[in-house]
Structures are given as structure tokens and as C-alpha cells.
């Protein structure tokens, strides 16, 4: 039995509806058509699908399904289940969290064709990798699929529901899974009170895999004998700035020169040491991941990598060029207004609080006064969404595939933003730029395989966002996982990152469950 801790607190609820938030076991129980590795630029791995192809203009997707797959109640899996699932999402806007807009038809038992009104190459990973296929013969009689708890899930995944208790749920191996019965017979997911409890449980050997910070990461392998640590750099830590005065943003950070000056004045090496135990790594101002997306990073950038050491002279030059003058207190001012900003963070996020304090010290040296403000998570997320802030320390999340396009479309596209005062989608900086919008629109029409055609668009986006800098890049934060390498083999490693190693990440976790082998120790 593999025991994992995902960071979940509070009681576990019975919920095997893969379309609802917080459904505990979508990955191991239900399966998507393909597995997209977000940690490495791998080709999609077949799951319920065998292969897929787009037509030339990206309006039609043809999928060939795996043959001989059976649902856990013994019924055969066919193209009708796939069409039913896609239609279910198209009909129920409340379930359609992936924004699916196609029209699916079954060509025969193993072939599905999905038509789109416009070129939709970039919707592929969501559709193929993040939509979990449900059985038509069970779900057609579900009265309200939005609130159904699906107590006895019928699915195709490598694991079946075993039992759910308020403090743990367990899944057991599916003996008739198309890929063969997994070697790990049971997986139990615990609910504990937080990361501290998780670290205590690892020390006691009660948990085999935990994703989340542990004290003294650098020496964790000595502190927890038999355990190993893997740090995967994916979260790009940034300062969100409410950047767009046209949409109602107020404050000095609406001036790009101020954002640039902050970018150069930050001492990233010191920040990493003080706040993150040196577990973070460099970041690119293109906001493409340095390891994973190396091939996409434009040669036209001023810096491919954000400077780890501060360049105060450069910051000074930028500010003075923009009409700022240093006052008697050492703080810059323009038109009689001192250059002071508030930086919001969540009380209790100790690493960010340390980072924010270090930042305000560093920026003070460069003549920028930054006051830290701690909020409850609720207030913080509300302020961020409504644009009621000057600076916020935050991290940008990645899309459903190893492709920087998603970061650009989520955080820089003008269709995911809103005026200040209304909740924005994902673009909380309120950044709008016609060139970036045009490039995002163009990328939607280009087959992701055609990298030569995509690069000019990436060049445009990356050079624009490096100048405008609505999100000021700080560091790339590592996701820390601690796992028991004595009891189990087959974990993803830096050399073989076959899935994103986070216990909470579905369906990556089920890919890992499937590959692990008990050593018998």
C-alpha cells in the first residue's frame, strides 16, 4: 500500500464526479484520452485514445480509440461514451471547466471526430488530456450531473474506489485495467492538519509520498532516511502589478519604468537564500520555463534570464529617465508624489512573507519604498481578482501541456481580464496589448508541431512582455516532493521526468502510481 499526503486538510467527502472541483480521485479512477506530461515536452501518451490528428486548419480533430477497454462494471468502452461525455460538457455550462466548444460525432465504435467553428489546435490538450471520460450507460440516467456525488463510480482507470473515510480515502488496483493490474495494490490519501503534520508523519514513516514544503529541505534526505527529495521548477513567482490605467489601475506601478526599475533592483540570489532555502531557480522574463521551454525562448530578448544580482545603476537610470528625482529621504518622487507602493501577501504564507520583507529592504536601497501588507487568503484573492492592489506576490500557473502558449493566453490576453472592480478571469494585471492579442490569436491557428511558424509569434509576445512587464519576474519556485525510495522504485527523477511529480496533480499522480513497484521492504 502506498500512502500519500497531498496537503489536503479537513474531512474527505464522497465525491466521484470528475467534473466537480475537489473531486479526490479523478486521475486514478477516471481516465482522459491522452496523458500530457506538463513537466517535459513529451508527445502525448495514449490512454483511452490511441492516436489523434488535426486537419490542416485545425477545425477538425480525429481520434482513434483504444480497443478492448472495459468499464469497471464489465460493459465495453466505445466511441459513444466519448461523444456522450463531450456532449455532456457542451450542454452543461456548469461542468465545462475546460471551455470545450466542439461538436463531437462517432464515426464508428473506435473513431470520434470533433468539429470546431474556428481553428482550435491549442484546445487539444484540454480536450484530450483534461476531460475525463465517463460511461454513457451510467451517466445518462443521472438527473443532475452537476451535483451528483457518484457514490459507486464506474470508470476505466487503473484504480477503483475502495473506501472513503473522513480522514482518508483508499483506492484499489483495477485487475481488469487495459494496461494490466498495477503493481501497487492500494493507494491511500490522507487528510492531515497541514505541512507540519505531514513532515511529522514522514519522520514516523507513515507517509510514502508528500508534496509540499518540509523543514530543512537541503538535508531532508539525511533527516528522513530512505526518503528522497525532488524539486521541480514550475511555478513562476512574480509580482503581479495592476498595470493598466485604462482599465482603472491606480498607483506608481502603472508606469512601466517603475516595473522595470523593480525588476533590476531585486537581488534574486539573496531572495532565494533568505526565503526559499535556495530551492528556487532562475526565471526568464519571457515567462517561458527555462528548462522545459528552452527551445521557445526568443533570441530577441534583452535578457534571456532575469539577472540574479541587482543592478541598481540600471534601475536608477530607468527611473531618472522617466522623470523621477531622488528626495531627501532617499526615495524617488515624481510631481511631488513619492515612489511608494504596497505589496500584498497572505498572512501565514511564511516563505512569501520573508520574501516580501527582503524585497522591501532591497528596493528601499534603490529608492523605491515598498510597504508589506498581510491579508487573509479570502481578502487577498478578492483584491487580486478585482484589481484592488498595487503589487501582489503570486505565482503564474502552467497550462495543460508543456507549452508556454497557455501562460501567455491566460495571463496576458485581453479576453481574460476585466475592469478594476470586477473579478478578472486569469489576467489579474489587466494587461492589454494589441500586438500580444494578435500573436495569441495567430498561435491558435498554427499547429503546435509547426514550431517554425510559431516562433515569430512567440518573439513578438516575449519582447512585448519584457518591455511592459505587467508581472515582474522574481524566481522559478520549485515544487518539493518527498518520497520513499526504499519501499518503492520507479519514481520520476530529474533525468526521467515522465510526469509532474506532485501528489495532488491529476492525472500525473495516477501515471506515477501505475509505474511504481514495491520493493518488498
Amino acid at each position: 500500500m502506498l500512502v500519500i499526503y497531498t496537503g489536503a486538510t479537513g474531512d474527505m467527502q464522497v465525491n466521484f464526479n470528475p467534473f466537480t472541483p475537489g473531486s479526490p480521485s479523478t486521475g486514478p479512477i477516471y481516465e482522459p484520452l491522452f496523458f500530457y506530461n506538463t513537466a517535459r515536452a513529451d508527445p502525448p501518451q495514449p490512454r483511452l485514445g490511441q492516436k489523434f490528428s488535426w486537419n490542416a486548419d485545425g477545425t477538425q480533430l480525429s481520434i482513434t480509440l483504444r480497443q478492448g477497454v472495459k468499464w469497471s462494471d464489465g460493459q465495453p468502452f466505445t466511441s459513444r461514451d466519448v461523444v456522450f461525455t463531450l456532449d455532456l460538457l457542451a450542454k452543461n455550462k456548469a461542468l465545462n471547466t475546460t471551455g470545450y466548444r466542439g461538436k463531437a460525432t462517432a464515426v464508428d465504435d473506435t473513431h470520434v471526430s470533433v468539429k470546431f467553428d474556428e481553428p482550435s489546435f491549442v484546445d487539444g490538450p484540454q480536450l484530450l488530456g483534461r476531460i475525463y471520460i465517463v460511461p454513457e450507460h451510467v451517466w445518462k440516467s443521472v438527473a443532475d450531473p452537476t451535483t451528483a456525488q457518484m457514490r459507486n463510480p464506474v470508470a476505466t482507470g487503473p484504480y477503483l474506489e475502495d473506501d472513503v473515510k473522513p480522514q482518508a480515502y483508499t483506492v484499489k488496483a483495477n485487475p481488469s485495467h487495459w494496461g494490466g493490474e498495477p503493481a501497487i495494490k492500494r493507494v491511500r490519501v490522507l487528510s492531515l492538519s497541514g505541512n507540519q503534520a505531514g513532515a511529522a508523519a514522514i519522520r514516523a514513516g507513515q507517509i510514502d509520498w508528500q508534496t509540499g514544503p518540509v523543514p530543512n529541505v537541503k538535508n531532508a534526505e539525511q533527516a528522513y532516511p530512505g526518503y528522497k527529495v525532488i524539486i521541480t521548477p514550475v511555478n513562476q513567482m512574480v509580482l503581479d502589478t495592476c498595470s493598466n490605467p485604462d482599465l482603472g489601475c491606480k498607483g506608481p506601478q502603472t508606469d512601466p519604468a517603475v516595473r522595470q526599475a523593480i525588476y533590476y533592483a531585486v537581488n534574486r540570489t539573496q531572495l532565494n537564500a533568505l526565503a526559499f532555502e535556495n530551492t528556487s531557480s532562475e526565471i526568464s522574463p519571457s515567462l517561458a520555463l527555462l528548462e522545459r521551454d528552452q527551445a521557445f525562448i526568443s533570441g530577441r530578448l534583452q535578457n534571456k534570464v532575469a539577472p540574479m544580482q541587482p543592478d541598481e545603476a540600471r534601475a536608477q537610470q530607468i527611473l531618472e529617465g522617466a522623470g523621477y528625482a531622488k528626495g531627501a529621504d532617499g526615495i524617488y518622487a515624481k510631481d511631488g508624489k513619492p515612489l511608494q507602493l504596497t505589496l500584498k501577501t497572505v498572512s501565514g504564507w511564511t516563505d512569501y512573507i520573508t520574501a516580501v520583507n527582503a524585497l522591501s529592504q532591497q528596493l528601499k536601497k534603490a529608492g523605491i519604498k515598498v510597504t508589506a501588507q498581510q491579508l487573509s487568503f479570502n481578502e487577498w484573492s478578492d483584491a487580486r481578482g478585482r484589481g484592488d492592489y498595487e503589487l501582489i506576490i503570486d505565482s503564474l500557473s502552467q497550462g495543460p501541456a508543456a507549452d508556454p502558449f497557455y501562460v501567455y493566453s491566460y495571463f496576458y490576453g485581453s479576453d481574460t481580464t476585466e475592469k478594476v472592480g470586477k473579478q478578472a478571469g486569469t489576467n489579474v494585471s489587466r494587461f492589454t496589448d494589441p500586438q500580444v492579442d494578435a500573436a495569441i490569436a495567430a498561435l491558435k491557428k498554427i499547429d503546435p508541431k509547426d514550431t517554425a511558424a510559431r516562433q515569430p509569434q512567440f518573439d513578438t509576445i516575449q519582447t512585448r512582455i519584457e518591455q511592459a512587464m505587467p508581472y515582474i519576474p522574481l524566481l522559478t519556485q520549485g515544487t518539493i516532493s518527498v518520497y520513499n525510495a526504499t519501499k518503492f522504485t520507479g519514481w520520476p527523477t530529474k533525468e526521467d521526468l515522465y510526469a509532474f511529480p506532485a501528489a495532488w496533480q491529476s492525472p500525473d499522480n495516477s501515471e506515477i502510481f501505475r509505474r511504481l513497484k514495491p520493493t518488498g521492504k
Partner: protein
Amino acid sequence: MLYYLRKIAFYLVALWTAVTLNFLIPRMMPGDPVTILLAKAQQRGGVDPAARRAYELMLGTDTGEPLFTQYLLYLRNMARGDFGISVSSFPAPVSEVIAASLPWTVVLVGLATVLSVLTGITLGALVGWRRGTWLDSLVPATTVLSAVPYFWLALVLVAVFSSALGWFPLLGGYDVNLTPGWSGEFLASAVYYGILPAATIVISSIGGWLLGMRNMMVSTMAEDYVRTAVAKGLRNRRIMVWYAARNAALPSIAGFAISLGFVVAGSVVTEQVFSYPGIGSKLLQAVENNDYALMQGIFLVITVAVLGANLVVDLLYSIVDPRTRAGAAT
């Protein structure tokens, strides 16, 4: 009769006020459930912008109805016992979430309260009886323990008995390897896991009961009937228990009935420190996620419990002590 009607009418008005506040207060909190849900999801990797619209529809937060219509709807649903669906434990109904956590709190805090009252009253009677002896030092000792912050006491107990000595489990309500039910093994585990949280409650509340009982005891012992009993040559033990303590305990019993009402409110802090699966941790979860439905459900349960306990005490008192009813006769 008029007296009882007036009492009941008063309680109905109090209930309505509480229920209305339940509706209003959560809606004054910053943020909304969907924003919080999405912000949490973003901490953990990708969320498609389309998710916002979907979750708004799914959680029904975007009804677009005016506040007053929402209020009427809320009153109707409350009357029917339909508390809606919890956002933080979606899609579980609120009634299910409460039903799963309420017994833990009622048993833990209930038993701890009973234990603390019984011990407090017994010790108080003894200290009052033997006043002036070394037993008097129990009063400042227990009062100091009551003054110690609740969470700090809990942390000290955890540090000493769980972390250092390893006698008790660190956290949780029972051994997660067992299946909840009426099996002996599970009950034993629940009791074992409950000892430290219960001890926190008992230690921190015993002082108040002890002090109150002791003071009542002292004044009761000056009464004529106690002196008569002594003059009659009754045994000391009989005088202490049947003449003094019985009368001295009356105010404590009233206080106990009221404190039972607060059992449901639980002790949010204790449950948080011990990760106990009770209603207090659910309340915290609801507040953290702006889960209006769950908050309203829990507040309603608490309100009804407190008002109910008060009503029972009020009515009982008018029977036990007719003087409280005197107003009705004139």
C-alpha cells in the same frame, strides 16, 4: 399560561433575529467562493479561464437575484430544513457535512463539559467545606489554568504528551486504518484520540466551576439549617453533601444547562490544534472558503442549541423556583 406564551414569543423573535444575522453577516465578508476556489486551484497549477464561468454556474453563486429575494428564498429553505449544498465540500449537502461532524463535537465537548462540571462542583464543595486548610490553594491553582490561553494549553499538552513522551496521538479523531462504526476497536481508538483534546477543555474550564461552587458553599454553610444539622449531631459527611452542597449547587446547575447549549459551538481552537473532525473545524473551513451555505447551517445549529438550552432552563426554573414567575400573578 400567559407567562409561557410570552416566553415562547420572545424566543421566536430571538430566533428570527439570529437567522437574519446568519444570512447577512457571511455576505459582508470579502471575496466570493468562486474566486477563492480558483485562487486555490491556481496555487496548484493550471486553471482554464473558462473554469470561472463554469464554477459560478455550478456553485450557483451567480444567481443575479436581488438580496431580498435571496433572503426570502433562504428563509423558506431554512424552514424546510434544506440548507443547500456546501461549496467547500462540493457537492455534499450541508446537512450531510454537519451530520458527519456534529456527533464528534457533541461527544467530545459534551463529555468534557460534564466531566469538568462534576469535578469542579465536587472539588468546590470539598474546598468550601474545608476552607482555611491547604485545600484552598486549589482555587488559585485552577484559576491560573483557566487564565492560560486555550490554544497554548493545547499546544503544551501536545508537545509534552504526544511529541516528547509519545503517549497520545498527535492529531485526528481516530486511527485512520479503522472504519468508523460501533466496533469496540474503533470506539477504543476514538476514546484514546479524544483524551488530550478533552483534557484541554477540562483543565481550562474546571477553575470557574470550582470557584463558584466553593463560594456558594461558604455562604450556604452560614445558613441556619446547616447550623441546626450540626446541632443535631449529624455526621459531617451527611451535612456536607445533603445540607450544604445540595443547596449550593443550584446556581451551578443553571449555569451548566446554559453551557450545554454552547457545546455545539464546540471549541474551534481545540479542534484546530488536534485536527479533530468536529463542527469547529468545519466552521473554520466554511469561513476560509466563504462557504455561505455551510456557515449558515452551522450557525443555525448553534443558535437553536443555545436558544433551546436557555428556553429549557427558563421554563424549568419557573417550576423549580416559583418566585421567578411572580410577575405573571400580579
